[in-house]
């Protein structure tokens, strides 16, 4: 059992040789705590499983750097922590500043009431031009926002499946959807399609 003891040289050697029994023991001992921790850190079920597997893979790849000063569990959880930070950073990239957020904010006062209400787009919304307008405005969407919009609104794929396809959280998906639909609406309004002829 590869639990709370430090790794001895024999065990290290067996792991480096990918000895099947030792690997099995390692996985059986540690994968559930890693999974639980990942879930506790807010990752979805599939993400947590993926992270746990990734942690063990990294552990095996970096065995040569292990100096035997910490317990296996500590070493594994250290890797887990770094993986979590990596993933959070990757998710943050999609959440970083987007000018469309500012456009949205500028439409409201500090109390959350409209200062620039949406223009009347009734004419375009009810006309055959809407399809052309959407197709045209889609060109201005960043790739991730466009993908989410296409999957959700055009292909009508359910949210959980899109999250799996794009490997993103529901929160992240909502941010992308908000920006995509906001940008499309602003685009249609800005191009004057809503104004009567």
């Amino acid at each position, binding site marked *: 059992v590869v639990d709370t003891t430090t790794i001895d040289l024999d065990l290290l050697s067996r792991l480096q040789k990918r000895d099947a029994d030792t690997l099995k023991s390692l996985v059986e001992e540690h994968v559930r705590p890693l999974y639980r921790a990942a879930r506790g850190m807010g990752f979805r079920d599939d993400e947590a499983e993926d992270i746990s597997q990734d942690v063990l893979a990294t552990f095996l790849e970096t065995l040569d750097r292990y100096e035997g000063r910490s317990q296996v569990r500590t070493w594994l959880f250290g890797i887990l922590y770094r993986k979590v930070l990596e993933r959070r950073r990757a998710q943050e990239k999609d959440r970083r500043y987007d000018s469309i957020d500012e456009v949205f904010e500028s439409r409201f006062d500090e109390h959350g009431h409209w200062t620039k*209400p*949406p223009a009347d787009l009734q004419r375009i919304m009810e006309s055959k031009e809407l399809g052309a307008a959407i197709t045209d405005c889609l060109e201005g969407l960043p790739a991730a926002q466009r993908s989410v919009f296409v999957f959700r609104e*055009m292909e009508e794929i359910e949210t959980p499946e899109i999250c799996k396809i794009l490997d993103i959280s529901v929160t992240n998906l909502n941010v992308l959807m908000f920006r995509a639909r906001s940008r499309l609406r602003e685009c249609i309004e800005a191009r004057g399609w809503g104004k009567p002829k």
Partner: protein
Amino acid sequence: MIRCKGVARLLTIGEIDQLGFWSRLPIRLHLWMCRHCSRLASQMEGLRLGARNVAGSMNKEEMGDKSLEERVLRKLDSG
């Protein structure tokens, strides 16, 4: 009390129908009272229907071109 900005954000995300009854209720009441948010709601619904029509028209174009399947099959066979 839910404000226009919060309602507009939810409408723009487009997941209001996924919310539970009690979460949806104040939004529905707000939409009933606020013409600006109500207008936004109509626009977002229009955007959704418009996007589906765009997808439908693409589908029709593809279905009209029956050689697509044949082309793909040929490529798979030759691959």
